Structure formats: structure tokens, C-alpha cells
């Protein structure tokens, strides 16, 4: 896999000497060609600054960036934004209100190398067709709805066929239905034209569903990098487990750890868990339970990995029921079938299979996770 984007030891500091705010600590990324790479994290984690450094809208304090094999930032050089081979979509669309749809999309072609008028028209039409906006070509930009403006913004970013597409929370200003629809289209378009894409979001559903790989950021650092499956199923820290999905945590002590078996004793019972090489017997650990891996039933059972609780909250959300179940002095989240719904106050039994019990070392309950609570 050749590199689409290489970010090496990126550091970015705001403010004047003596009053500095480090927004990006030390970020290193190697993004493959045609990857859909997501920077995921809460606001202020440095994801947008990292993206803006790639675009050249911010100058990093140190570190280097390569786009498609071309060094755009290093100790010696800083290529200005307009000479980088990129397209960018902004959160607030940034559609120029004084231009028509056509003029907005044609802009990148007109400011670049000279093209024939007919060629510009052809490529604008293609770009608009790609985002299903060809019917609006003669409209004024201000006559478009939010979703249409965002499509226009995407067409504008793609029209000069850049090597790199940068997306700064492009879906967050759209309403839920539109967001879901645009999410699918975005990925489809990206796959169809094949373009290295960096996507910034704080929405884990967007990140998981769109990305080939995700870097979860917190406090200016990448805390975990991997495929959506890795990130979701094997979070390496409590912060990642908590941020990527609504995970419940139970503290305990590892009692037995072999390559085959890992058992953890907690105050709600003993759990057989997915094995983890990093855990030794006697370690303080945290169990991370995904809501959808927790099975809610009304039959008491003595089986392994099951514990009793009382339904505190029961929300019907259409395709499932979201539960908060009081277990001892903590609330455990669970996702149940929509067929049967336990009402609040019901006594239930929760169970979870060993392979869904992710064990995190408590010592890695790092300062970021603590800070983000």
C-alpha cells in the first residue's frame, strides 16, 4: 500500500511564547492511497487542527506532511494551500453566496491552470452529476437547502480531481435523515472515484460506517488507530471504549490469565472474558461491555457471565430497546430486541458471552479518559 498522506511528528502550538496552548502534541499518521481515513474525537482533541495543517490553513510548529509523495510541510518548506493538490469540504459548507451553483463549482478550475470554457463546463457538469446536483446548475447558491449546499461543496472539492479529499465534519450541520443518506453517498462516491480521504468527525457512527481506518484522538494525541472493527471491538483504553459507542464499565481484579482463559472477579460476579496478553493474574482491570452484547432476559440463570438487575429506563427506539439496568450501584446499558420490552422496574437477568467481555488494564485508564469525564 503506497502512502496517500504521511504525517510525521506533527506538533501545533497556538498563542504566543509564555502563553501557549498545545493543540496537537505529536501526531504521526500513514494514510494509504484511496483510504477513507477518519480522525475521531471530542471537540478540542486536535483533529480539526491536524486536518487544517494538512490543508495548509494552519502552519504546524514542527513535523512534516507529505501528500501523495510530495512534501508539503517540513522544516524547510511550507507549500501554500493553493498549491496543494487537495479538495476540502467545510462544516458550514462555505458556499460563496455571491456565485451561482455553476460558478461555485467552476471556481477551482478557473483559478488553476487554463482550461477551455467547454472543458470547464463539462467537468462542472460531471462533478455536479456525481453528487446528483446537475439539475440545480443554474441556481443561485443561496437558493439551496443545507443538504444541497453540502453536495455543492463536495462537487467543488472534487471538480479538479485532487489527490486528497479533506472533510471537516461535513455532515454535522445536516438533519439526521439527510445525514444518513449523505453518509452512504459520500462513501459510494469516494469508492467510485478512488481518492485518499481524511474525514474529521466527533460522531462514532459516521466514523465506524465510513472509514477504512480510524484514528481516535484525545488531548492532541492519537490514542488508538485501527480498523473500525478493531476500534469498536477491541478498544485499547477506557476512553476509546467510552467514546466509540456507549460502553458500560465494571471494575474488577483478574484472577486467572492464560492464553486460553481470562477470568475477572467483580462485585457483581465472576466473568469469563476475551483473552488479553497484556493482563496478568492479580491486575486491576476494567470490563468494557457493549450494550448490544448484553443480553436481557427475565429467566434467572446460574450460567457464567450473568447477573441480576432492575430496569431503570426502557426506551423504545424502533429497531431495538435501549435499557439502563441498575446492577448493584452502577447502571449497565443494554440493547434488547424490539419484540419484547421490559418496563422500568422489571427484574431482569443480564448475560454476556465471554468473547464480548473486553478487559482493559485499569492502569491504562489514562489521564485523557479521566480528563474527559
Amino acid at each position: 500500500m503506497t502512502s496517500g498522506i504521511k504525517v510525521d511528528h506533527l506538533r501545533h502550538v497556538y498563542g504566543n511564547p509564555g502563553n501557549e496552548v498545545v493543540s496537537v502534541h505529536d501526531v504521526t499518521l500513514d494514510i494509504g492511497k484511496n483510504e477513507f481515513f477518519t480522525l475521531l474525537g471530542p471537540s478540542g482533541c486536535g483533529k480539526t487542527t491536524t486536518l487544517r495543517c494538512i490543508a495548509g490553513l494552519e502552519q504546524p510548529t514542527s513535523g512534516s506532511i507529505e501528500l501523495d509523495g510530495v512534501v508539503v510541510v517540513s522544516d524547510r518548506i511550507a507549500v501554500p494551500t493553493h498549491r496543494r493538490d487537495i479538495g476540502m469540504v467545510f462544516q458550514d459548507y462555505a458556499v460563496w453566496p455571491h456565485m451561482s451553483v455553476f460558478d461555485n463549482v467552476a471556481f477551482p478550475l478557473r483559478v488553476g491552470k487554463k482550461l477551455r470554457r467547454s472543458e470547464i463546463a463539462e467537468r462542472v457538469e460531471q462533478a455536479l452529476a456525481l453528487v446528483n446536483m446537475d439539475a440545480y446548475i443554474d441556481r443561485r447558491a443561496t437558493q439551496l437547502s443545507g443538504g444541497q449546499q453540502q453536495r455543492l461543496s463536495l462537487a467543488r472539492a472534487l471538480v479538479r480531481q485532487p489527490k486528497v479529499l479533506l472533510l471537516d465534519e461535513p455532515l454535522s450541520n445536516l438533519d439526521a435523515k439527510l445525514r444518513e443518506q449523505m453518509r452512504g453517498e459520500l462513501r459510494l462516491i469516494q469508492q467510485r472515484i478512488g481518492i485518499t480521504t481524511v474525514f474529521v468527525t466527533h460522531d462514532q457512527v459516521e466514523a465506524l460506517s465510513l472509514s477504512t481506518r480510524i484514528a481516535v484522538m484525545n488531548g492532541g494525541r492519537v490514542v488508538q488507530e485501527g480498523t473500525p472493527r478493531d476500534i469498536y471491538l477491541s478498544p485499547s483504553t477506557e476512553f476509546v471504549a467510552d467514546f466509540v459507542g456507549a460502553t458500560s464499565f465494571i471494575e474488577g481484579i483478574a484472577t486467572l490469565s492464560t492464553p486460553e482463559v481470562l477470568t475477572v472477579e467483580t462485585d457483581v460476579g465472576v466473568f469469563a472474558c476475551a483473552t488479553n496478553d497484556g493482563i496478568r493474574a492479580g491486575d486491576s482491570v476494567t470490563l468494557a461491555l457493549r450494550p448490544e452484547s448484553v443480553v436481557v432476559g427475565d429467566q434467572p440463570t446460574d450460567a457464567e457471565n450473568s447477573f441480576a438487575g432492575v430496569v431503570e429506563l426502557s426506551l423504545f427506539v424502533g429497531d431495538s430497546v435501549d435499557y439502563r439496568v441498575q446492577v448493584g450501584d452502577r447502571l449497565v446499558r443494554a440493547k434488547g430486541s424490539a419484540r419484547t420490552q421490559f418496563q422500568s422496574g422489571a427484574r431482569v437477568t443480564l448475560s454476556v458471552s465471554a468473547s464480548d467481555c473486553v478487559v482493559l488494564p485499569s492502569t491504562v485508564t489514562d489521564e485523557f479518559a479521566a480528563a474527559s469525564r
Partner: protein
Amino acid sequence: MTADLRLPPTAPATASGPTATPRRRRRRPRVGTAVVLVVLTYLVIGPILMLLLSSFEDTSAGVVVRPPFPWTLQNFASVLTASKTYSVLGATLVFAVACLLVGFVISFALAWIVERTDIPLPGFIYVLVVAPAGMPGVISAIAWSLLMNPTNGFLNVLIRTVTGSQAEGPLNAYSLAGMIFVQGIALVPLTFLLITASLRNMSPNLEDAASASGARPLTVMRRVSLPLLTPVLIGALVYQFVTVIEGVDIPLVLGLPGHVTVFSTQVYLTTHSAFGLPNYGVSSTYGILLLVLAVAPLLIYNRVVRRSQDYATVSGKAFRPTRRKLGRWRWVTFVAVMIYVFISFVLPLLVLVYASLQPFVGAFTLESLSRLTFSGYASTFSSSLFWSSLGHTVIIGFVASFAVMAFSVALSWIIVRSKSKLAWIADVLAFIPHAIPGIVIGLAVLLIYLLIPAQVYGTVWIIVIAMVTQYISLGTRLTTGGIAQIQVGLEEAARTSGARGWQVWRSVLLPLLRPAIINGFMLVFLATIKNLTLPLMLQSSDNVVLSTLIWNDWNDGKVTETAVLSVVLTAVTVIASVLLRRFSGSGEELK
């Protein structure tokens, strides 16, 4: 000053690699920024140096610009120990605060009515409210002294006829109240323009959201519209405060006969002393005191504009203005606005037209109507001095306005967008000329070009240079507000689309700034041709303009000639404002 831009010492070559030695990269130097700042520094620092120099000199033999300097603190000593100085200061503050109150309440109400309600003919109202901007202060002061002087002012005569009173008055233009009235409504056109421009750029969604939250219209205005307009309002307040305290024409025409002296008249009187040589040293000292008075509010303003990101109300998102339905109040409001327009603009104009058609000015009677004659116009239009003055006025107006707006846009961008520490300095530099009394700018420019062997002394170009110095602040206020309201994202989107610096300017910034630029051009043009002080200070036989002609005639007691010229100059400025309004293209949303 350059220390901030300099690189820290380069890491030793033996350091353990590039990433181990984090250092700040230098921004690429911007040639444009440098040029703008150098020119501005020359235009602003020059006059300030002249001001300081002459205030610390014994200028009884004129200002000395080469060693040996006759240094003295006598100017400050005499000004600061005089009790007159403090009574003048008190009168100035009362005058200024009252004028601002009158001007801003009227302006905000009118702006909101025109931009946010369904009042009939908003475009027509807009033009009529702005039109008095073309009436120089000296002309409106003359008009109101014809209307309200206590002995034979037309309004007083009319009231006395109705009441049968024989005494003087009851209205008296020659009083503090009269000055406040005339100066207060003279502030309205500019204030109104500033407020409408930002109301138009402010998304009505923000107001609608407040209505939807259950707020009544007045609450919406108080809790949402006014706070959102805060940077613009405070900017305008600071600016108009200075306009009031430095304006010499109304206090001179109305204040002197009524023995009301404010700071500006005090400066004028020391510069144009009735006996002997003008004392530029004392005049400059008063100028410095005025400068101090003006800089204090500026510091407050700077704190507000620094937070301008909080007020970025123009986004890439589309919005359609909604207008509040006035219902049965629609025509009542319209009539009220028309009455205001009549008092502020039509009435003074009618008086001037009447006076211009009389061979001599006496009481207004039916008999005097039979004396109407165009002889005043005939003699004016056959005078070659009139035509050359008109030509000079127009040339100075166009050239100075173009230069001012070009500088202003560049400067505002530095102030608002650049992260440099120099931005704050640039902001102050752009404002200070307005804080210097025009008479001092005039004096300073005069002395500078007596020293520099450039062939501008005595030509229209020396007036152009002085005008640019004076009005760079007016232009910059407008363009700074305009740029602060353009979201940074629109600029960044152009850069990520591959546009280089000048392309971002041409394709995105300038088109989006067009309303602000055209508004600014129009305002500077009008201010320039109204300006009396600078042409008067820099006057020679080769660069007489209309305003200086009017002043000279009024001084000589030639009321008819003064009235003819006033009507002509007002006609020029009204036509100019209507034409420029049409070019601006922003009239379409007023239909």
C-alpha cells in the same frame, strides 16, 4: 517590532533530527502588507509629528522644522492653567453626549424600519434619510440660522405671527440646545448607513429565533438585535463622538453668536486669532488634548472588535430576509418618517432655495415671493471661478475616495484577519487621523509639502493627500466591519480550491465586500466634497473648491450667493448619492 517575526536561533546541526527540535516556522512575508503599513505610517505619523513638534515649540514666529528648535512647555502650561479650558471641556462633553443620543436613537429606529418592516417605499426613504449626508455642516447651520435665529428666523416669525408675541424667539438656534438639534440630526445619515449595512448582513433567523422563543418585538430588539449589532454600534458611537468634538462648522456658525464655545471652536479661534499671527503652538496643544479625548473610547472599541468572531453573523448559509408586518401602523409609521425627512432635509433645503432666489434676504412675506429672481444663479453660473471650483471638488472627491477605499480594504484585512501583533497598531494608526482636528491635518500636510520638494503644494493634489489621511479612518471602520462579518471559511474554501492570494481577493473577498466598499466610497466621496477645513487650510488661487467658495461668501455677508452655492453643492451631492446608490446594486433587496 520585527522581533516577533524573526526565527529563533537555528538548532545546532548535530541535533537529533528535525522532529527533536520543534520550532516555529516563519510566515511568508507579505509584500502587500508591508507596502500598506509603510504608506499608512507615512500618512499618519507625519501629521502627528508635526502636531507634537509645534505643540512643544514657541511658535510665535511660526513653526520651526529645522534645528535649532525653540523648545518650550509654555503652550501646555498656558492651556492647562486656563479655567476657560475646563469650561470648554464641560460644554464639549454635554454637547457630544446629547448629540449622540439624538442621532443614534433616530438612526436605529429608521434603520430598523427600513430593513426589517414592510413600510411602503423603503428605497425612497433610504435615499431621503441618506440625502442630508450631502449637506455640509456649514450649509445646514446656515439654513437653521435662517430658520431659527431669535431676531428674524422664519420659524420664529411664523410662531410670533400665530401667538401675537412681540419678544424675540421663542426658538433660538444660537444656543447649546440649537447646536445639539442641528448636530444631532446631522449625525443621522452616516449612523443610519452604518446600521442598515450590518442589519442587512445579519441573518434575520437570529431575530426570528428570539420571536419563536416568545420574545415580543421590543424584547427582540433589546436582547438580540442590539447586542448583535454591538461592534457596529460601538464603532459608530466612537466614530461619531469624534466627529462631534472635532466638527467646527456648526459650533462656529451657531455657537459663536450664542457665546457657546466647545473644544473645536477653541482650536479654531486660537488658529485664526482675530489679532496678530495665528498661534499654531497653542492650537496644536488643544489638538493633542482632543486627541487624548478621542483615543480613550477607541481603546474600548478595540476590545470589542477583537472579539469580532463572536459576532460573525454572515455565514455561507443562505438566508432570506423576513420583514415584520406593521399592519395598520404601516402608513402611520410612513407619515412619521416623512415628517422627519421634511424637518431634517426638505425644510432647510427650501429655506436655502428661497434665499437663493431673493435679491436680499428679509422676512418671509407674500410680497417677498413676488421678488423671486434667478439673478443670483445667473451671476454664479457665469463665473469661471465657480466652474473651476466645481471641477476641483469632483476631482478631489473621486481620487481621494478611490485611494481611501483601496487602502481601507487592505488595512482592514490586516486588522481583522492577520494574526500579527502589528494589527492592533494598524488599527490605531487607521483611526488616529480622525481624532486629529482637520485643521491640524491641514496645517501638518501644508508644512510637510513645503519641506518636500514634490510639486503638490498649491494644487488639488495636496488636498487629496490631506483628505486620504483624514478619511482613511472612515473607510477602514466600514471595511473592518464588512470583513469581520465574512466567515473565514469562505476565504479558506477558495484557498483549498487552489486560488492564490490575489484570486481569493478578486473572486471572493471583493465581491462579498462590494456593498461595504460602495457604501464606503459613497461616504468618503460625500465627506470629501463637504469638507471645508482642509481646502481652507490648503487653499491657493489654483485649488478653490465649492465649500471654500461658500465659506468665503458667508464670511463676506453675501447671503444670496451663499444660498445659491449651497443649493448647487447640495444638488451635486444628492445626485451623487442617488447615482452611487444605483451602482451599488444593493437596491434590489429594497424593492
